[in-house]
């Protein structure tokens, strides 16, 4: 069955990424480790040799151990769900992920939902009403957001709304003085802190969804069954939703997975700018502080997530489009 084939490809890709990650990170040029040791020497005043020993120990890197067994150990660990250890935070990466992932998922899914929904509606309206003032506005807006990198959008939002107007905070996922609980206070502060990151993603992506939907809807509107629906005296509202809408949305579904992947990639920058403690923020920390264990674990997580998202989108598409379902 095709599902199995796709699952197989997904797993092979994941395996490939795992191997790649392992060898890239393991083959860190010696001087990276040396630099690190140097830092430790400078901070703690111990000898270089001792520092190197510490680095290697924390890094679980035994140069005498054959690469193959290192690799096997690594893969076995992954198969058990162990993402590794963070040297910086001196805890397992899994624990950090447990803390950070919910925030990232929260912000990303909210943003994706918002930008997809608003964009789709706009796109359908533009396609439906053939000449409207909305069209050049959206096209112009799309050009502007296409040219502006997502982090600049984020910076501008930060500058205007957080720093200057002080309407929103400049860091954190919630106000630290509020205890995390299922209380209205907590929910309020969570939402308050999430507004700017979500706004950054949404401003950046809505226009391209609108244009994608417009293109899809315009080609659907040219199909015979739309004209035939009108001939049958169907209500315009029904034609717009059940006839145009459902068909126009199909090609965009795979775009959702790609968008999700892109957003995960962009989360490093957006979360860093807003000091929002999600996966991206921790990834940046790991990179800046040379925490290779954390970097590796989070990278694997990101890769696995995007591979999985693509797999789901593929399945979703075949499930939604009856024409494809039966071709397998």
């Amino acid at each position: 069955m095709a599902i199995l084939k796709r699952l197989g490809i997904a797993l092979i890709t994941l395996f490939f990424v795992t191997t790649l990650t392992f060898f890239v990170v393991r083959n860190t040029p010696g001087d990276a480790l040396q630099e690190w040791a140097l830092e430790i020497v400078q901070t703690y005043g111990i000898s270089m040799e001792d520092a190197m020993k510490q680095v290697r120990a924390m890094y679980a890197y035994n140069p005498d151990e054959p690469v193959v067994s290192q690799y096997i150990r690594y893969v076995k660990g992954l198969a058990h769900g162990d993402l590794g250890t963070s040297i910086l935070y001196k805890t397992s990466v899994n624990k950090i992920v447990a803390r950070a992932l919910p925030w990232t998922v929260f912000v990303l899914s909210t943003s994706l939902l918002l930008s997809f929904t608003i964009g789709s509606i706009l796109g359908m309206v533009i396609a439906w009403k053939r000449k409207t003032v909305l069209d050049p506005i959206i096209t112009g807006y799309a050009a502007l957001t296409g040219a502006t990198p997502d982090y600049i959008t984020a910076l501008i939002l930060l500058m205007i709304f957080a720093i200057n107007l002080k309407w929103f905070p400049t860091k954190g996922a919630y106000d630290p003085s509020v205890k995390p609980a299922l209380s209205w206070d907590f929910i309020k502060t969570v939402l308050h802190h999430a507004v700017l990151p979500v706004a950054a993603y949404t401003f950046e992506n809505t226009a391209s969804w609108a244009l994608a939907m417009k293109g899809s809807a315009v080609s659907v509107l040219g199909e015979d069954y739309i004209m035939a629906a009108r001939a049958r005296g169907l209500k315009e509202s029904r034609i717009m939703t059940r006839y145009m809408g459902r068909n126009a949305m199909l090609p965009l579904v795979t775009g959702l997975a790609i968008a999700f992947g892109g957003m995960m990639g962009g989360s490093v920058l957006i979360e860093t700018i807003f000091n929002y403690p999600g996966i991206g923020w921790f990834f940046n920390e790991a990179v800046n502080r040379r925490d290779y264990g954390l970097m590796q674990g989070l990278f694997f997580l990101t890769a696995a997530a995007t591979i999985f998202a693509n797999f789901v989108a593929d399945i979703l598409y075949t499930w939604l489009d009856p024409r494809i379902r039966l071709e397998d």
Partner: protein
Amino acid sequence: MTTATVPAPRRFDLLYQTYRVLRRNKRALAGFLILAGFLLMAAIGPYVVPLDMTAHYEQRYLPPSLAHPLGTDYVGRDTFALIVHGSRDVLSIAFFAAVFTVGIALTVGMLSGLQGGMLDALLMLLTNTVLTIPKFPVMLVFATIFHVKDPVSLAIILSVWAWGGLARAVRSQILSLKEREFIEAARVMGLSLGHIIIKELLPNIMPYVAINFLYIMKDAITASVGLMLLGVIPFSASNWGMMLNLAIKQAGAIYIPQGIYYATAPMVAIILFQLGALFFAHGLDEVLNPRLRS
């Protein structure tokens, strides 16, 4: 060996078509002028506009004036001069990154398309991986591990995960061209594979590649500035990305009201360049794909 020429599809005179597009499409023309402006800025700007790197603390974060059209930075250096001098780095990084990306994409795409079989399957698996995994984290990892010292090494890092889309497109173009008669005819005539590639296949995909070159440059700038923003790549303070990095650091320009000019100058420069690239590339795209002409 016969001297008869094989009738190939009408060769695309890219320059002439570009000229026609620029005449008709105002936005493409605007884009072209913007790009040309930046190119000029990068080429001769540093000679025309002097950059005084000495620190004048008393002149920090001055508002725009005749002497300093964009104000000054956190140690009193002229922002405009910084932008001008930074443009050279920014554009050359983008250019090299695009060159490498296109090189890899063409190689992979053509190998895949022409060879087919196991190699094709393998290369496509690789391409899919590259396309699925988001490239910014990858570039971050590479940037951390392999020390970046100059524009070329940065360009390599930028290109290593960027070639996926173009490779796939090149492959499908090759696949469709492969079946066409003029390729068959060339084969029958005993023309070598190299000849077929260079004289027959490449000219047909070059216009498409040229347009994507612009898009790739645009992406490379976005990525490189993003990397610099995070402080992963040590670069001279005049590089736009570096300027942004310095602006968002503690007590950086974005937190200081007077610093707004310094903070926004590189942003505007980046957005302007990207817009130029987009408009111009869209215009060229219309030439390649006439159905876009509404």
